[in-house]
């Protein structure tokens, strides 16, 4: 059940180690996943890697049916749901609640097991899963609290205002996806101006161009990322 060698895990490890992470930068890389060089903005959670493991989910026993037996539609449904929502739930657990990746994956499994057992019609599946993930994450930290001291900013983890949480997280993920489609220069422009908060003049110096052109670039790149964002959301709707 581990998530070895995954980006999220590496990211979470960095957070646990309290190190400043530097992501790779490949200016010629135009494929999705490429990010401009940058430093982590958030502070790392002071965690103890040697802490006892949190309560995790034992793997579900194998189905009573014989190997190779046809799967139920419910199995196909839950797999599809898991694939569709996993990133969002992982995001909620790892980013909002700062839960280590392997534990987050276990909590996701808990959420889906719980979902399977609701025995009632769920009105908004995504919102249900996100709210349940918040519930599982709070439970995780409560359980951790019994065996080790809680992180200093525990309260911030606990109440991310789950009413609009799903939309907010989904929106951030879609923007991230949209950024992956941009040319590196455009991505870097947006990174410098919006994320690092540099003025158009600073951006011009960084990109070795004129102020006027940098301004135009900022505007065009913002327009472009919005266009891509809208086309992605139109498709997913």
């Amino acid at each position, binding site marked *: *059940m581990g*998530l070895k060698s*995954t*980006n*999220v*895990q590496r*990211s979470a490890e960095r957070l646990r180690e309290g190190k400043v992470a530097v*992501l790779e930068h490949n200016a010629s890389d135009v494929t*999705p996943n490429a990010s401009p060089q940058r430093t982590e903005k958030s502070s790392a959670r002071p965690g103890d890697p040697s802490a006892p493991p949190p309560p995790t*989910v034992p*793997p579900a*026993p*194998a*189905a009573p*049916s014989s190997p190779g*037996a046809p*799967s*139920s539609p*419910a*199995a196909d449904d*839950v797999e599809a749901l*898991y*694939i569709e929502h*996993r990133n969002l739930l992982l995001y909620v657990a*790892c*980013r909002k609640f700062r839960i280590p*990746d392997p534990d987050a*994956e276990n909590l996701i*499994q*808990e*959420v889906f*097991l*719980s979902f*399977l057992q609701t*025995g*009632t019609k*769920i*009105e908004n599946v995504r*919102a249900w899963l996100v*709210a*349940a993930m*918040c*519930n599982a994450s709070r*439970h*995780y930290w409560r359980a951790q609290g019994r065996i080790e001291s809680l992180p200093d900013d525990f309260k911030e983890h606990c109440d991310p205002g789950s*009413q609009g949480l*799903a939309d907010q997280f989904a929106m951030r993920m879609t*923007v*991230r996806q949209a950024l*992956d489609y941009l040319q590196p220069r455009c991505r870097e422009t*947006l*990174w410098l101006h*919006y994320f690092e908060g540099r003025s158009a003049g600073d951006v011009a110096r960084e990109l070795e161009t004129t102020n006027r052109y940098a301004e135009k670039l*900022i*505007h065009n790149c*913002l*327009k472009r*990322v*919005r266009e891509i964002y*809208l086309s992605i959301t139109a498709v997913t709707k």
Partner: protein
Amino acid sequence: MVTNMIERHYTDEALIALIETNRAAADRHLPACEPCSAKIESFRMIADALCDQESWDRPASEPVPATIASLRAFADRMTDEDSRAETILQALLAGSREEWMPRLNEHPEWRTAGVVRKLIEQVYTTVVAMPPDAVEMTALATDIAEELDSTAYPSDTVARLRGAAWRDKAYALFYVGKFAEAEAAIFASERHFCSCVVSEYDLARLGIVKALVLRPFERFAEASDAAVASAKTFEDYRDLNRTVSARLAEVPILVSRNMYAQAERLLLDLERQISKSTHVDTHARVLGGLGQIYKKLGKVDVSIHYYDCALALLDDIGASTETVRIRWNVAVILAEAGKVEDACARLRDLTHEMANLGMTVDAALASLDIAELLLVQNRYEEVEEICRSTMQAFELAGLAYTTRALTALAFIREAASLRRDDRRLVRSVREYIRVLPRQPNLLFAPSPD
């Protein structure tokens, strides 16, 4: 310049410039122009997101095959157990409910999680039709769930099942008026759910039952807190239907405290929320609640209006039994407003419909409403006739408590044949017949004059 701006839409560059220079708030065109304000909002949303580290993080990892395998195995196991449980349930629930538990004890192989789930599935429909059966079904469910081996199922499956079984038992016990036992079942359910990793949603569902159960104890504050907390959780889960249901549970609490104005405000608020949804059943319950509140407030016309709205919705979804109950309320309101003939005519129609729907007791109660109205007008022969036909209906229905109902009705028929206007007797017979299904061994004793 300003005039031009109002007449023409801003370009993207102009909108971005407004954001960049923080001049959007002072702009005069934006508040008046929906397309421009929507567009600038989307630019602002993207720009804000670009300031957030989370938007720049690399995509999350790939789905984990082991998780998929575990979830698929669990789903397959549930499907398999549930399908076996359907066959088991047919055998288990054959005959009278007194036979069910001994039969279960003869078949330990029937004690599966699937059987618990299937029993729970049937409780809510059974509780309306035959409440004591529902109580016995939940007794079976809790008995099986408590003996399941929790290590044979992944994670907190068994704890969750136990919680659900006890919750439904609490509801069924509440339905038959065993409030103390219902409260004990709530405690048991709460204990099991609290041990689960994901529990909020289930606890919120339990909260609605708790609100219902605590009200008869007049523990209004606790009951209200439970309903409010449940509604908050359902809001977080974006479950409008259950949010409204939880808040609806507050209404009887407010009514018990004679807080009709607050109940009215609450119901009107719920009506606004639910009216645009597809939850017709819940919407009808809200409208019916408004009908009831306006009746309490003495606003007969408004009350009937809301009852009519509820009826229209219930007709659409073919909820026949609910429809006749609401029409019954309307007829009673008309009777109370002095419109006796209209009320009698409606009640006569209703008794036929109720009889056709197998609602023998309700038909008898509606008939006794007519009898009471007729006694006021000294129409004794008609009262006698009503008693005769009601007795006949009970005989045909062959219910466990038919004999007792016939005895009670005979008292009214006799009083009518003696031309005695004994409305108090009619009321006591009506109350007796109302509780008979829940207490079939209760004896009728006419109140002493």
